[in-house]
């Protein structure tokens, strides 16, 4: 092995990761052995039919869920050996997550929802406010700060969820269908935002999408089928101007 140029440690390294829901006859094998490496600075689209395990995989990557088998190394450190508090710190300091179902706090204003991750990062109040405002402006929701989720459309809630995920400037951003509820024009705005976060700030992004047009913005497309990775291809991003 001596003399071989050592490849850079991938930021994310999944090997033979499985996830089984339930027991016995009713068990569902959502992931059947996933090997996936993501290097710092990548912009990946995850595609595949409904029920193929995309969300399950993203939850594992986001340290929100524990895999049934296999190992997940984040920056070379096996996540499986970490305590719940260490995983919480990992989420707090390195990861951002956009849920397929948004998961905003109800009866809580858009601004306070976006502020939430900063509260746990102990960012002082004034700075927190300013950062949350800026993030809401970036997703096109300036002026909606005081609206609560029930007063926002599905697409607007989705954008609040995106703002909450990017407000901390995470090293890695996981987004589960971040444009699923958005019209084409807004989707393009979001993709421009994600692209600039990836290119200007160097944030690593993995996003699930069903739309080839959206996947086309990324530089790598991973396709899931029945809990396996069916294909993993380089993509030449198409830029709409």
């Amino acid at each position, binding site marked *: 092995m001596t003399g071989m140029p050592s490849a850079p440690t991938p930021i994310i390294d999944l090997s033979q990761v499985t996830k089984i829901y339930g027991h016995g006859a009713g068990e569902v094998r959502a992931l059947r052995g996933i090997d996936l490496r993501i290097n710092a600075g990548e912009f990946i689209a995850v595609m595949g039919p409904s029920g193929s395990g995309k969300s399950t995989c993203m*939850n594992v990557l986001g340290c929100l869920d524990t895999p049934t088998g296999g190992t997940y190394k984040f920056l070379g450190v096996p996540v499986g050996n970490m305590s719940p508090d260490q995983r919480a710190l990992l989420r707090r300091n390195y990861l951002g997550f956009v849920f397929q179902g948004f998961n*905003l706090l109800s*009866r*809580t204003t858009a601004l306070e929802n976006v502020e939430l991750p900063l509260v746990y990062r102990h960012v002082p109040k004034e700075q927190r406010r300013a950062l949350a405002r800026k993030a809401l402006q970036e997703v096109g929701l300036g002026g909606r700060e005081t609206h609560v989720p029930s007063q926002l459309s599905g697409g607007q809630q989705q954008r609040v969820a995106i703002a*909450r995920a990017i407000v901390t400037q995470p090293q890695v951003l996981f987004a589960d269908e971040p444009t699923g509820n958005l019209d084409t024009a807004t989707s393009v705005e979001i993709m421009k935002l994600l692209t600039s976060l990836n290119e200007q700030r160097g944030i690593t992004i993995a996003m699930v999408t069903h739309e080839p047009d959206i996947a086309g913005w990324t530089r790598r497309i991973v396709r899931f089928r029945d809990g396996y990775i069916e294909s993993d291809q380089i993509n030449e991003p198409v830029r709409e101007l």
Partner: protein
Amino acid sequence: MFGNAIILALREIRRNVLRSTLTILGIVIGVGAVITMVTIGEGATAQVQQDIQKLGSNLLQVFRGQGFGGGGGARSSAPPFSMEDVNAIKNEVAGVRAVAPTIGTGTQAIYGNSNWSTQVQGTDDQYISVRDWPLASGRNFSESELRAGAAVCILGATVQRELFGSEDPLGANVRLGKLSCQVIGTLTSKGQSGFGQDQDDLVVLPLRTVQRRIVGNADVNSIMVSARDGVSTEKVQADLESLLRERRKVRPGADPDFNVRDLKEISSAMTQTTRVLTSLLAAVAAVSLLVGGVGIMNIMLVSVTERTREIGTRLAVGAMARDVLLQFLIEAVTLAAFGGIIGIALGLSAGALATHAFHVPFVLNVGIVMLSFAFSAAVGIIFGYFPARRAAQLDPIEALRHE
């Protein structure tokens, strides 16, 4: 971290006005009810004890006839007492402080245009000492007045008020039935007895005056005996009984034709009764406490799903389990404290109003205040905190999927 948790907790309280209000209400009901009920019960007990004090301390009363109250057929057939009996008690029973013979009868008291139906009590100069009942003005009976059966009287406060109003009664002549007698003194007010009788509604005269000029015989109906301080009334009672058995020639083993009542016995019976009342009130209060507790529990359990998802979201954006728990604990404690303070304030106000309305003293029982508060707070904290603790130990995604 602590500051953050406080901010987040207060935010959640403000955000969920209904849930917070209902939780506080549950605690307010529990704490308030217990404090109100116990205050009323304790007030009644204190009132009874005051009444007992008013009767006079260490007071024994000898009646003729058998049984409690000395009434019924036995009374009329049993021979009356005599002054010899009174003197024998004075001389032969150890530990006696004062002895007063009494004879009572109803009469009409008239002064000027005022007319009042009252009780006449024939007795001697020991009466006020036996009953521990100071004079408000004037003087006690003199030896010669007692011996001669003079037409002099001492007025109870009620009779004084009804006949004289604000006028000075000393030296005036009051007509009692056919007898006209001069007022030489007035008694201080003793108020109502534990039985609800107005103890001040009486006119006290020399025994002989009543015997000769009102009832027309030489009988003594009952004898009041007060024991010296520090002397057991049981001992005095036993001595009294054996002395009177001998004097009245009651055969050994036979039921006596008199009875000696210790007012302490009556008072302890009354204390017992109020204690039952207090327990009853306490039981009602305990039910309220329970109802309040179940209310809090319900609200907490109903909101568990929403709160579990909330916890999932917080964990997902980087909260540690202990951040979340601290927030929930502060939330629960704040609500409990709010509810507790309002409940204590309401309970004490209601208790004060009720004791005022029932004319009983207001007694503060700090132990019960603390206990009821602790119970309600514990319910609030247990049902607010423990579901949160379970949720905070889940993977975030499991908490988010909670249904």
